[in-house]
């Protein structure tokens, strides 16, 4: 089949190999621009491959199975947060509360299981519900009260953070060894590859969300609402309901991220990197998903998250100072957004 890679006509992530070629190739003056327009994940993919090759030149351990395994384990949480973030950004929204929502969910999961002695499955379910609730709050702010997503989620960032801190009360909660809460951290060995259940969960969710975006009417509507909300409304799409569903999906994904985070660290505390919010947005933007909505795919986000991870890991292995990692990340974001603006010019 002949799919246009930029949009929902796309196959599920990983399936694009079957495509004979971009439908719109050579429709614009500049072939590179046209190619990137048709395949927005191509840019991040090239950067990822290039970065891997370069870092491997500096340190031959870089592309070893051990290091690749570690990088995948490290990318799982941000990768999941970026996945939820992608769906929201595709509707031209943004979620600044993503990290706070995840921390709140993991504190509830661990708190119920460890402090209150709830059955773990129940604790997990309630934690996922709390994550869903954070999505519901954000979704209501955007659809019912017409608060711009940037402002609405800036507000809920404060609220979720405060509720999380209050609930956690400064504790670090460690589930008993063998607890189902830690299952996401269990190592799965595939040959000389050692990944965790959490990594597999991340991959599964990318496949599911990628499928929903690329192969269902819901996905088409996500792109349509992100691209031209008024046109989508006039076409008969219930835009408010669609946006609400998007924030709910994102919330649920953050809930899974919370579980993966507990498994990875082995305990739950509010004392996690405060850069999670921005890291998720960074991954999405580097992954070629347009902040203006309607353009991009989750495969690109996965590449984006991996790029950030590869840079952090590779620069650390090469013995480069922290500040240069941040510099590199910042430059990548600027480059990605500039590239997006350039690619979007074909529209006019």
């Amino acid at each position, binding site marked *: 089949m002949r799919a246009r890679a930029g949009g*929902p006509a796309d196959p599920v992530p990983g399936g694009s190999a079957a495509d004979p070629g971009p439908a719109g190739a050579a*429709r614009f003056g500049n072939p590179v621009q046209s190619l990137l327009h048709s395949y927005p994940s191509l840019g991040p993919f090239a950067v990822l491959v290039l970065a891997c090759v370069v870092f491997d030149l500096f340190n031959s351990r870089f592309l070893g199975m051990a290091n690749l395994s570690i990088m995948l384990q490290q990318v799982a949480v941000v990768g999941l947060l970026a996945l939820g973030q992608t769906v929201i950004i595709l509707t031209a929204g943004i979620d600044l509360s993503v990290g706070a929502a995840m921390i709140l969910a993991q504190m509830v999961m661990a708190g119920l299981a460890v402090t209150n002695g709830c059955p773990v499955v129940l604790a997990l379910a309630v934690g996922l519900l709390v994550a869903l609730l954070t999505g519901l709050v954000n979704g209501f702010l955007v659809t019912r009260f017409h608060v711009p997503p940037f402002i609405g989620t800036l507000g809920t960032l404060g609220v979720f953070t405060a509720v999380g801190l209050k609930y956690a009360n400064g504790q670090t909660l460690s589930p008993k060894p063998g607890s189902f809460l830690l299952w996401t951290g269990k190592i799965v060995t595939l040959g000389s590859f050692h990944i965790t259940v959490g990594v597999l969960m991340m991959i599964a969710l990318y496949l599911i969300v990628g499928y929903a975006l690329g192969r269902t009417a819901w996905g088409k509507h996500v792109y349509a609402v*992100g691209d031209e909300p008024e046109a989508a409304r006039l076409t*008969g*799409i219930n835009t408010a309901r669609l946006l609400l569903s998007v924030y709910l999906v994102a919330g649920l994904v953050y809930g899974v991220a919370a579980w993966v985070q507990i498994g990875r660290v082995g305990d739950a505390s509010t004392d996690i990197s405060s850069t999670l919010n921005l890291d998720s947005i960074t991954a999405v933007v580097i992954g070629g998903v347009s902040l203006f909505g309607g353009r991009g795919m989750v495969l690109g986000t996965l590449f984006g998250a991996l790029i950030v991870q590869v840079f952090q890991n590779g620069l650390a292995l090469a013995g480069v100072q922290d500040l240069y990692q941040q510099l590199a990340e910042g430059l990548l974001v600027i480059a990605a957004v500039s590239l997006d603006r350039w690619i979007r010019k074909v529209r006019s």
Partner: protein
Amino acid sequence: MNTTTNPPRPPAPDAAGRTPVLAARDLVKSYGRVEALRGADFELFPGEVLAVIGDNGAGKSTLIKCLSGAAVPDSGTLLLDGAPADFRTPAQAKAAGIETVYQTLAVTPALDIASNLYLGREIRRKGPLGTLLRMLDTAAMRKQAEEHIKRLGIATLQDITQPVETLSGGQRQAVAVARAAAFGSKVVILDEPTAALGVRESGQVAELIKRLRDHGMPIVLISHDMPVVFELADRIHVQRLGRRAAVISPATHSMEDAVAIMTGARTA
């Protein structure tokens, strides 16, 4: 103010005793302090092409938005086949078989032509893939979209998988017209469908309107193009200052008459 020419309240049957397919009575719609509609009436009879003309800002687009669920009037009633109807969303009007080409062209640039045609009415795969996994039948939609476009004789749209953003303004308009023509089952409303079109494409849309009319489809055509209006319309609704100023017939009135009524220089 010119209210003397208002015909009796709808849904008055016409001379032949027919009930209007779509009618409106006393529509009022304000945007802030701007009164776009101030008690507008409207009637569309079965099988006719009704042109709506009027100066810029006369309330033509607002009128058809109220008829198609894109805007909800502040007061007034809608009648579908003589029965009260209440469209609060475009989806409700579409479900009733009313398809509209909006002046602002409600197309989605990032999606391809086929996806645009089927947006909001997607076809799912047969069997569990469709019911359980909700998988779209992209191949079927493309095939049918191609058939629709061929049947409608819209030659300017070649590659159904082309993203709409790569199309020219006229081609985009053709996509919107094709969608309305393909799926309108009761009424097709066209708000300035030829505004961005070249001479040849305008001619194609005019042909398309004739063909739809020959199939018995009632059509509302908003246009500033008087020769086209007088060629295609069975009746002409003249909108002025948020109201219907008159309904005239190309058979009994000239273009000069129409313009004079439109500008308030005279009444019908």
